[in-house]
C-alpha cells in the first residue's frame, strides 16, 4: 500500500505544479499551491505511518501553520493587485520587468 499512497501524493504535487504554471487567474494559482502543500503533507503522514514514528505528524502541524500564513499574505497581495489594476490576471502584473 505504501506505493499507492506515494502515487496519490505524487499526483497531487504534479497537478498543483501544473496549475501554478499554466493558469492565469491568481486565485487559482493560490489554490494550486495549497494542493501542492497538501500532497507534501500526505507524504509526511504516510511516512510517519510506515516508519512508525510520530514526528511526521508533528511536521504536518508546522506545514499547516506555514500554509495558513502563506495564504494570508498571498490573499493580501491579491487584494492589493485588485485595488490597483481592477484585475487578478497575473499577466497584467509584469511591472517588475519595466
Amino acid at each position: 500500500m505504501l506505493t499507492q499512497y506515494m502515487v496519490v501524493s505524487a499526483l497531487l504535487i504534479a497537478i498543483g505544479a501544473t496549475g501554478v504554471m499554466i493558469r492565469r487567474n491568481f486565485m487559482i494559482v493560490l489554490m494550486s499551491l495549497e494542493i501542492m502543500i497538501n500532497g507534501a503533507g500526505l507524504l509526511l503522514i504516510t511516512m510517519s505511518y510506515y516508519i512508525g514514528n510520530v514526528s511526521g505528524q508533528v511536521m504536518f502541524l508546522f506545514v499547516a501553520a506555514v500554509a495558513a500564513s502563506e495564504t494570508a499574505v498571498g490573499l493580501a497581495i491579491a487584494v492589493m493587485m485588485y485595488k490597483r489594476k481592477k484585475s487578478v490576471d497575473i499577466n497584467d502584473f509584469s511591472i517588475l520587468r519595466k
Partner: protein
Amino acid sequence: MEALVFYIIAFITVVGALGVLLSKNPYRAALFMILAFFGIAGLFVMLHAQFNAMLQVIVYAGAIAVMIMLTMMVMDRRTIEGLKRFNSQWFWPAMLGAGLLADLILLAIKFHINMGNAGKNLAINGSNTQLIGEVLFKHYLLPFEITAIILLVALLGAVVLTKRDIK
C-alpha cells in the same frame, strides 16, 4: 476492503485536484479544492492520524477555503470570471508537469522501506493526540514557538499590505 476504500477516497481526491486545475469558474475551483481537502482528511484517517485529519478539516477546509472564498467575493465577479482559462503558452509547462509526475511515480515505485513498523508506535493508550502533544512539547518546542512568530508576522504583513494607501 481497506484497499477498496482507499481507491474510492484517492479517486475523489484526485478528481478534486483536477477540478481545481481545469475548471473555468474560480468559485467552482474553490469548491473542488474543498473536496480534495476532505479526501486527504479521509486518507489521514486511514493512516491512523486522526488528529491530523481533524486539523485538515478545521484549518484547510474550514479556514483557508473560507478565506479564499471571501476574498473572491470582495472582488468583482465579472473580473475574475472573465479571464482566459489557460496561459497561451500552456503546452510546455504541462509537459513539464507530466515529466515531474513520471519522475515522482518512478521514485515511488522504486522506493522500499522496512514495513515492520507499519502502523505501530502512533498512539499511547490508544490516543494519537496525547502522543502528538507529548512529542511536540518535549522535542519540538523551539520550532513550535517559531511557528507562532511566523503566524504573527504573516498577520501583521497582511494587515500592512491591505491597509496601505493606493495612489
